[in-house]
């Protein structure tokens, strides 16, 4: 799945708006978990309701279903982690549209629930993993800490650039670049063997 360059490019591009709030490890975990669950639950609900959906209503139905799922997940998260959820709340409804964008290539209306679930777990996993890694790196490079624990601020000054959305873009670019280099290296090794 990940070797399909277009698919992972699309997932990362669709997840980019959410990286704005993934400034620390905790916020990135919250956004990643909600995003992952939203992709899976929305896919399952769309599959279950497919007999009621037509081609024209499918897109709007997907958006409304995923908005509902994100709303319920946000409310649940705010019960346990109110301050953390409030800090990212303006961006959370965007998860619904990123979910629809992520799943737009895979026709969940046509697919069986098992296949759709399998695809959504992989795609949701890539998206959430990307958000989590970006959050951790932004906290480490931008604030000099990890999970709120100070790592190097007494020795070096952290690079404040990474607190801003520019930092998220640079980190995303470097992660994709690293992935491409690793894929090309393993590909070359595979052909030699």
């Amino acid at each position, binding site marked *: 799945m990940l070797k399909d360059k277009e698919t992972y490019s699309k997932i990362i591009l669709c997840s980019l708006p959410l990286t704005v709030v993934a400034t620390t490890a905790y916020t990135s975990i919250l956004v990643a978990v909600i995003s992952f669950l939203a992709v899976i639950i929305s896919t399952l609900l769309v599959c279950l309701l497919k007999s009621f959906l037509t081609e024209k209503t499918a897109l709007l139905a997907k958006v409304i279903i995923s908005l509902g799922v994100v709303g319920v997940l946000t409310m649940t998260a705010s019960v346990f982690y109110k301050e953390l959820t409030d800090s990212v709340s303006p961006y959370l409804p965007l998860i619904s549209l990123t979910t629809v964008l992520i799943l737009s290539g895979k026709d969940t209306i046509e697919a069986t629930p098992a296949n759709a679930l399998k695809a959504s777990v992989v795609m949701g996993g890539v998206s959430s993993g990307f958000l989590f890694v970006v959050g951790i790196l932004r906290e480490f490079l931008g604030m000099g800490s990890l999970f709120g624990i100070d790592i190097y601020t007494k020795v070096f000054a952290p690079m404040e650039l990474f607190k801003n959305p520019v930092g998220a873009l640079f980190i995303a*670019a470097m992660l994709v670049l690293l992935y*491409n280099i690793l894929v090309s290296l393993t590909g070359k090794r595979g052909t030699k063997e």
Partner: protein
Amino acid sequence: MRMIITLFVTGVFTSNLVTYNLLGIDSLHSDNKTSLSSVLKNGFVVTVVLLLSTTICQPLNNLVLSPLKLGYLAPLTFVLVIFGILLLLRVLSSKFLPKAFMFLKENIKVESVALIALGLCLIAFEYEVARGYAMSLLYSVICGVGYTVVSLMFFAINKRLAEVKLPEAVKGLPITLLIAALISLAFGGLAGL
């Protein structure tokens, strides 16, 4: 006049929807906008959708949802309004402007435009409320102009990059993200102007 200039600098440069809120990068990454006119048309469509969605969503939020304490329904309402606007544009253009309808059908990705409009409604509303209705409408147009400016920059840079031999690992998504990061960094320099 000073406020309008401040709004212009904010909407086009420092808080640009693409480079600061990272909305709509997926639509800039796709290669379907091969001519200058299609880039400008795309920017015009986004500007119109942003203006119409702010025209309807802001009074709906201020006069209906907030007084009735139904703020949690705001994302759902906004999405329905935005999709309604996009549908209306399609229906009207199919009847009166067949060429525009073909352009909308072939080049505009509904989910991406909806994501940008929802992002503006959710993220920028808190700043817009303090400015008043007329200024909000102006700000939405300025945000559309900001999107068009970034689209034009992407188009120009991609055209130049097509003549350069890039390393294989950098091609595609990494270079798009790096361009976005550098534009964001350049625009960020105008903060506090």
